[in-house]
């Protein structure tokens, strides 16, 4: 009798250890979901996450065109005015295009901002690639300063071959500017900054700076 009880106790302890491990790994899974979700979005364009491309596609641009619309938002905590220079452009799929936004710091102190972004419809996310973007880095504007911020992108011609995106005639690219977090935005800034080093820096440029293409 006592022997079986001890056996039982051992067995129970083993079972419990296994179960604790299961519970522990589920906690781990919850945390793992953070980078995995981000990666998943970037790889699949989920939620309208645009792709980031190091350079323009090798293939020649097609003749089929698609409209790209620009949307701009500013978090109320950021004393900026921010808007696209043009509401929309029509581009040939596969052709890299540069578009500009205009940002003005209307406060009387220098302010640093950082932008989030996505495209709609979501299903177009995987076909929309940015080569360079002001959103890859934080942007600092002096008091009263107005700058043009550039984004270089192209639309993958594959979008015309996906049965799911046949109805897409316009893609909207949206940005929301937030005040850059204290501590240099250590959490969110990382992947973008890493990416920005690879790409040639394009924004911000002063208004008088680069000529505007397209």
């Amino acid at each position, binding site marked *: 009798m006592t022997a079986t009880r001890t056996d039982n106790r051992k067995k129970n302890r083993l079972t419990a250890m296994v179960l604790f491990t299961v519970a522990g790994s589920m906690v781990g899974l919850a945390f793992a979901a953070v980078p995995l979700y981000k990666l998943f979005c970037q790889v699949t364009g989920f939620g*309208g996450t645009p792709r980031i491309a190091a350079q323009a596609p090798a293939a020649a641009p097609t003749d089929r065109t698609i409209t790209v619309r620009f949307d701009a938002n500013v978090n109320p905590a950021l004393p900026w005015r921010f808007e696209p220079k043009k509401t929309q452009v029509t581009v040939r799929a596969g052709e890299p295009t540069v578009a500009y936004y205009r940002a003005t710091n209307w406060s009387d102190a220098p302010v640093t901002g950082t932008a989030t972004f*996505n495209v709609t419809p979501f299903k177009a996310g995987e076909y929309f690639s940015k080569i360079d973007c002001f959103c890859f880095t934080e942007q600092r504007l002096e008091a*009263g300063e107005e700058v043009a911020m550039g984004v270089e992108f192209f639309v993958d011609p594959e979008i015309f071959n996906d049965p799911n995106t046949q109805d897409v005639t316009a893609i909207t690219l949206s940005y929301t500017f937030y005040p850059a977090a204290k501590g240099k935005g250590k959490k969110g800034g990382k992947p973008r900054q890493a990416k920005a080093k690879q790409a040639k820096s394009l924004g911000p440029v002063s208004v008088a700076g680069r000529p505007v293409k397209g």
Partner: protein
Amino acid sequence: MMQRLTILAPMTALSFFGAAGNAFAGGRSEPWQMWFQPAASPVMERIIEFHNLLFVIEVSIVTLVLGLMCYIIVRFNAKANPVPTKTTHNTLLEVVWTGVPLLILMVIAVPSLNLLYYADRIENIEMTLKVTGNQWFWTYSYPDHGGFEFDSVIVPDDELKEGQPRLLTVDNEVVLPVETNIRLLFTSSDVIHNWAVPSLGLKLDTVAGRINENWMRINKEGDYYGMCSELCGINHGFMPIHVKAVSKADFAEWVETARKEFAGAGGPAPVRVAETGAR
């Protein structure tokens, strides 16, 4: 920000029954309404159509189960059936009640997916409306009409005019043309809100830091009401939506006045730009 009213007794509420029959019946719920608001958009028409199918299935299942239970209660109570059977298996029966529901689900899934993809396709868009949720009002902007924008705030109960529905009336309703495919962009300046208009078959979250997209087409002129449909804090119940659908000509006319009326109304930014004299 809200001046809320005194308690309304049930009798006061009863008096609203008579006031329901205004010119644009259908854009909001009626007293004692038990069904959807009449559809005013192709998506809502299809939602109702699909629901009619679902409803038949739902009622049939409930009736079947209820019928069986009633029969069991009458036939197999201890008095009526003193000796229980010993049956615990019937393979055929078990296959049937697994298989038939599967078939029913397929009957549901096909139109369901059709509806889903129909509502998702954004084709031949003629204009864009951008909706921004704020604690606790909506901001509407018209990027294709010069980008003017305005806020739409609830009218407090004590400032309502004759015929204006309580908790649904706003100071600036969002005016849109009928028979026009409209792209809708949604975002938020703070917490998550949800822009919902039942009769137009619309409901989508506004999330800060990203946009959501949807589309609509309003079939006929009228007033269509909705309410914020995602808990967004203290005044969540007090940020209504009022869509005023007008003819295309009237819309063009309205745009002209609105552009003037709301010029520079987009927050402090435009004013300040002028002040600081951007380069």
